[in-house]
């Protein structure tokens, strides 16, 4: 078959950014998968609640302090997170490096509060179904904080290495920032579900 060149693409950028980036779409797709998982965990929580004679089952409502503190911390972390996304768009290496260090710390800090959240539930996973679902919801979200933290740490190392100053890396930084927004956004309905629904 003969080929006739009808389109010249030589002027196109050699790497897509934002919605022209494949990893951006991939991140979005994984967020859809995980978001469905989070939503289902809330559905399971509400389903078990609808069957229970009283709720929470054999436990007082969770203590508000650690969970609310973690929520506040996550919301605060959105500010540097948005800044780092902007700096990544500007491909400002120095600022991105600083931002990544801050975001690494802001990834570690919630873990300390999360450790306090489990006892604040006043129930163990193996006591009853209420205990099981709250531990699994907390655990599910913790794995997401951990995953993003590891990714942030690796990116921090990368940006301090010779591979750092590369549009592709800036794209990774902004995708990672988007994923952190997701980690925060999914927590909010879980926070309401875990801490406030038992008080209704």
């Amino acid at each position, binding site marked *: 078959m003969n080929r006739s060149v009808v389109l010249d693409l030589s002027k196109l950028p050699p790497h897509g950014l934002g919605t022209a980036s*494949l990893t951006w779409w991939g991140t979005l797709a994984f967020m859809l998968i995980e978001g469905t998982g989070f939503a289902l965990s809330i559905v399971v929580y509400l389903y078990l609640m609808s069957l229970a004679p009283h709720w929470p089952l054999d436990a007082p409502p969770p203590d508000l302090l650690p969970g609310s503190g973690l929520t506040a911390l996550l919301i605060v972390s959105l500010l540097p997170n948005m800044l780092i996304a902007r700096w990544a768009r500007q491909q400002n290496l120095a600022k991105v490096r600083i931002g990544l260090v801050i975001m690494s710390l802001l990834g570690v800090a919630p873990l300390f509060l999360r450790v306090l959240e489990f006892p604040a539930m006043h129930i163990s996973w193996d006591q009853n179904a209420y205990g099981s679902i709250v531990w699994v919801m907390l655990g599910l979200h913790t794995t997401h904080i951990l995953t993003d933290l590891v990714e942030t740490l690796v990116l921090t190392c990368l940006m301090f290495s010779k591979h750092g100053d590369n549009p592709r890396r800036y794209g990774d930084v902004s995708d990672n920032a988007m994923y952190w927004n997701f980690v925060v956004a999914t927590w909010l309905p879980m926070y309401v579900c875990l801490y406030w629904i038992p008080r209704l």
Partner: protein
Amino acid sequence: MIVRDEVEDLRDTALDEVQLDRRLSETWSTPTGLWGALSTVDHKIIGRRYIYTAFIFLALGGILALAMRLQLSEPEARFIGPDRYNQIFTMHGTNMMFLFAVPVMEAMAVYLVPLMVGTRNIAFPRLNAFSYWMYLAGGLLLWIAFAVDTGPDVGWFAYVPLSGPQYAAGKRADIWAQMITFTEVSALAVAVEIVVTVLKQRAPGMSLDRIPLFVWSMLVTSFLIILAMPAIMIASTALILDRLVGTHFFNPAEGGDVLLWQHLFWFFGHPEVYIIFLPAVGMVSTIVATFTRRPVFGYLAMVMALVTTGVLAFGLWVHHMFVAGLPRLGESFFTASSMAIAIPAGLQIFCWLATMWAGRPVFKTPFLFVIGFMVIFVIGGMTGVMVASVPFDTQVHDTYFVVAHFHYVLVGGAVFPLLGAIYYWFPKITGRMMSETLGRWTFGLIFTGFNLTFFPMHILGLQGMPRRIYTYQPEMPWSGLNMFISLSAVILAAGFLLFFIDAIRSAASGPAAPDNPWGASTLEWATSSPPLPYNFARLPVVGSLEPLSNNSETLSVAGGLSVDRRELIVTSVVEALPEARESSPGNSIWPLWSALATTVLLIWSIFTPWAVVWGSIPVSIALIGWFWPKGTPEDDT
């Protein structure tokens, strides 16, 4: 060795066809040898592997089916004891659903979608390699467990509490649940790849209304996978937790609920049927268009039907639970929604009929399988309407009627199109033609054998024969039909045997295939058979729904891509306007290491929860190795 600085950013426009082929081959090919095989990220090699593996699982699952037919051929037979029989039917269902049907459809997409949208590799090719290794590991886990008499024996649906800690001692149920994790990880990974490939890597000009119907069907299927599979992941994780660390999700004594499992399982399980069926719809549309010599009638209606089916698929799950004792009002809603899905299915059937009527049919083997599909699938659809009715279902649920129904739907609706698709795309995949004579015999045997095997099961079900029984007493009036079914199964098996013989023989020594043996009009036929590692020397530019039929002498292509790195084009979602030249990751061994590390973690975690903690360390290391830049041209910008 070319020093890169000398030829900084060499573009395809500077090269003639011979030079271009040579340079692209250097950039894109997979090295020979074991290391090359283990580290390749070529979607065609991985897709082929996926297809072969899935067909091996099909053959194994078929052997299990024959074993069951042997045991059921006469009353109180003693060929297989109850323990082994329960493992066998569990394995048959699990294997066919999770290791054959879903993976084989995704495998076809892994091979075909990048070619059909005119790109050089699938999006996230390393994830693709990873997904295959995970799939293989999950399949091996299940079959090795079965070989050492530890195969799951709780049904492919693994209802609690039978699969729970109290009634399923040992590791059989855990192996089932963890096999789910393997196959779901792999299926979800492929779904993400397909979605991004279809949305962002289409050839310039392939706007949404020019996407081939098979690609549309895979796009919808991938979204179904993304939205349905998390439910089974949550369910199987909860089951493992109940079994391993004593959570109480499914324990009614501690506030858990038995039906929660059924809800979660079928919220995934019903879309699963469409995850298997919708790709087949795409295959049928492709084959019908090619062998009636005209585009499928009602393109827009077909796409709408695909999307509608996908949406409705999430509103049907309760019809698997009509006898579980749910509120009457809910059941009525699900009767109506289950009936309603017959409307988009009917629309598709009518559009194909219209295409056949208006076209000029050519009765080659792929088309014969499509005709067989029409005959059988319509029966499956009809019995589907029957089981959607609550009172009807109370008599046939969990009987051989339902066995007949879903084999009509899944074998008729998906395996027949798949076999047609294999005959159709075999020349593209292997570069050789399959035998038309053997193809006709294969079709005849499978069509006859299938109907003789499965049609009588409708009657057995109405006569009161439940599913999943390993024998029956001679005073039950079922012996005659069961013997008849078992004998017919031999015809069916002979058909499949002939298919495998034909496929293996043709792959080795069939006549060489031209680029476009069927005179088809989609892009995969615009390149050689089999395609070179880079798929297209110059990426096609699309101006219509049928890029090869309007202008069959010359193919419009784009120029200006770099040949020094693996490069393809990213286009916009709706109109497929070029947005960027993008690199595609090169070969890497790290997906294999990652899959091995994940396999260790998952299997270990059947035994102790600490495996999640310690096992995640090698997984993290492998993933960092995977993503850490190696300074390759693909990493440049």
